């Protein structure tokens, strides 16, 4: 039973990847690009040298952090699309802490504080969406999307107003921080040990939380069947908020990472769309905590490697955006197919559906 399950999962992932490549190939052909060459350049551009790999890891870290956070909310069946805004607010609070810490004697302390600030910022923003859901009855997708726009607005307002560079009014971002307040990168390796440690710990914590703790179990129970869980004495509202706090906290760290490790300042596009991308990552990984980092790595490679397309093949650079869009379509197609298969299986065996889907069966 168990081994057939694993085979099934692997088959599904292979199918998804196949669909992804098929979609992408069609698009490349339509754009008049040689697909094999394009794949080769993407591969070489992302894994062809240590420097390139180091950039992949740089993108992988925030992506994986967001994905970790989303695992909690997906587990309780919440669509935390507000992860993007949570990342932005994490970045905002991080920037605020760093600004206070300019000229400090203890830059490392300030950096750590700024990460804690990032967690608080992201979690608070997620909590807001959570409260809107549990108290206000606002669907978390709408609340999240709305709060994403608000977070973007706050960033723009800060960059253009409160935190503007002297004599300048530009959307390009705030003044760059002094190098003492940059996340430490091992010079030869070009990798941030702290960043890497944080993301590995995050994955392990998430796996452990979801698998071995009461919170993880309860999240799953409520996600599977809210009403039944309620009858068991679980309070769905409370656990939704808990899931949101975790999601927002991890997204917030991802925001801190972007400020301290990548851009060294706050800018409007600080979240780099990693939040939205992480939603895809988690879905593609079929909500599996061990697969999510691998899928995130794949997307990070694509992100870094696709720069080769305009540089080497003179392809219009918007093509990598189109490819990413195609990925979304491919994933959705697989998703739809998966649900249909599940549904069919359920039709054949109604009791099985109860277990798999956990939805109520009227009797």
């Amino acid at each position, binding site marked *: 039973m168990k081994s057939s399950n694993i085979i099934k999962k692997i088959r599904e992932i292979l199918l998804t990847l196949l669909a992804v490549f098929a979609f992408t190939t069609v698009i490349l052909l339509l754009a008049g690009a040689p697909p094999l060459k394009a794949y080769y350049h993407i591969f070489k*551009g992302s894994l062809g040298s240590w420097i390139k790999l180091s950039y992949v890891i740089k993108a992988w870290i925030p992506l994986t952090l967001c994905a970790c956070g989303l695992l909690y909310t997906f587990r309780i069946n919440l669509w935390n699309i507000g992860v993007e805004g949570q990342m932005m607010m994490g970045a905002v609070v991080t920037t605020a802490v760093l600004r206070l810490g300019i000229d400090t004697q203890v830059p490392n302390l300030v950096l750590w504080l700024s990460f804690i600030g990032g967690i608080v910022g992201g979690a608070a923003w997620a909590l807001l969406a959570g409260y809107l859901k549990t108290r206000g009855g606002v669907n978390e997708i709408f609340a999240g999307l709305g709060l994403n726009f608000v977070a973007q607005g706050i960033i723009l307002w800060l960059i253009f107003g409160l935190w503007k560079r002297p004599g*300048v*009014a530009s959307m390009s971002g705030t003044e760059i921080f002094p190098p003492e307040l940059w996340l430490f990168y091992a010079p030869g390796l070009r990798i941030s040990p702290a960043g890497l440690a944080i993301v590995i710990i995050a994955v392990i914590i998430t796996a452990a939380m979801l698998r071995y703790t009461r919170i993880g179990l309860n999240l799953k129970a409520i996600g599977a069947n809210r009403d039944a869980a309620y009858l068991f004495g679980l309070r769905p509202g409370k656990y939704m908020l808990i899931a949101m706090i975790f999601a927002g906290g991890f997204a917030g760290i991802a925001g801190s990472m972007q400020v301290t490790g*990548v851009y060294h300042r706050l800018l*409007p596009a600080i*979240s780099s769309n*990693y939040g939205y991308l992480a939603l895809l990552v988690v879905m593609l990984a079929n909500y599996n905590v061990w697969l999510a980092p691998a899928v995130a790595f794949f997307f990070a490679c694509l992100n870094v490697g696709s*720069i080769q397309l*305009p540089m080497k093949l003179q392809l219009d650079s918007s093509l990598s955006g189109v490819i990413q869009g195609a990925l979304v379509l491919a994933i959705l197609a697989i998703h739809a197919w998966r649900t249909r298969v599940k549904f069919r299986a359920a039709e054949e065996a109604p009791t099985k559906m109860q277990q798999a889907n956990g939805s109520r069966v009227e009797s």
Partner: protein
Amino acid sequence: MFRKLILIITIICFFASLPAAITFAAKEKPFIFGLLLVGPYNDRGWSQAHFDGGKYVEKNVPGTQMVYIDKVNPADRPGVTIPQLVDDMVAEGARLIIANSDDMKDGTREAALQHPDIHFIHISGDDVITGKAPKNLANLMGRMEYAKMMAGFAAAMTTQTGKIGYLGPLINEETRRLAVSCYLGAKYAWVNVLKKNPADLKFQVTWIGFWFNIPGVTLDPTQVAQNFFNTGYDVVISGIDTTEAVVVAGQKHREGKKVWSIPYDYIGACEGASDVCLGVPYFNWGPGYVRLIKASMAGSWKSEWLWLGPDWNDINSEKTSTVGFVAGPALADETWLKIDAFIKDLGSGKVNLFKGPMKYQDGRSFLRPGEVASDKKLWYMKQLLQGMDGQSSAK
């Protein structure tokens, strides 16, 4: 059997690689230079002017080859940084890298420190003046002020309502300087040529917040331009990287309005807007690029700050003039004669518009009576001038 197969394959591989090796030895390694463009390479504005500059180098300096990446900004390429792209280009063999946006200042400096053996040109920057530049980083800019004066001159000669709009990008020293230059050219035409009252000339600057439109982040330049035309401004001068002003002017013209526009940056920016385009002040990056790239190739590279002007013998010379102004199809012939005279006066030094007394917008003195602005004072323009409407800095 198996061994034989391997042997055959090895032999085939050997002979297959021979021609490649021979051509490799025969051909000298090209000097590869990289170009980082903030916008699309075909934006008919700032970035295309740079792209053409790179093509000019390839054509005129034998043995050079360009690699480029466009849309280098965090909105178009999320998560991508300048040092990362520089690493990619260096891996491609680039030995000199040009970064074409003020937005890339910090990233370029960071990359230059990481690659001390690669030469860098940061366009429009001032790291060399401020002393922040490492030895392998140079700055290059064109004295666009002159061409902007010509643009302002053309605008004032053409306007019928006396209201000129300036579609500004973000606010910094460079953009203030260029808006001011337009205003001074306009005022000169208004007062000295048309003999009108300076108080009747309205010059409004509206900033969108970045060099080009980023939906949801900047003001929409199309809307700003429409707003100008709808409120009585009949000439809009563009200060942004892209062509919205002249496009909107064309639409308004087709609706029957008497309006004109002056695009920016790219010599071909008037194309397709012949009914409304009064001319374009443009950059010709070829000569500046050639100068620095030749220096790099010859080993005579210096970390210098170049602010290259027009060649007054022929401001539209592709070979020698870093900035130029070409008349547009909508410019009246008699106005062109006046502009031509104005250009001659600028070139001979008979007319110097940056001569005091001149006051900043808040009334503080910019130039004392008789004082001629030094390069440094001009470069670091702190405010707009008195007589102009619009923000001098962020609120």
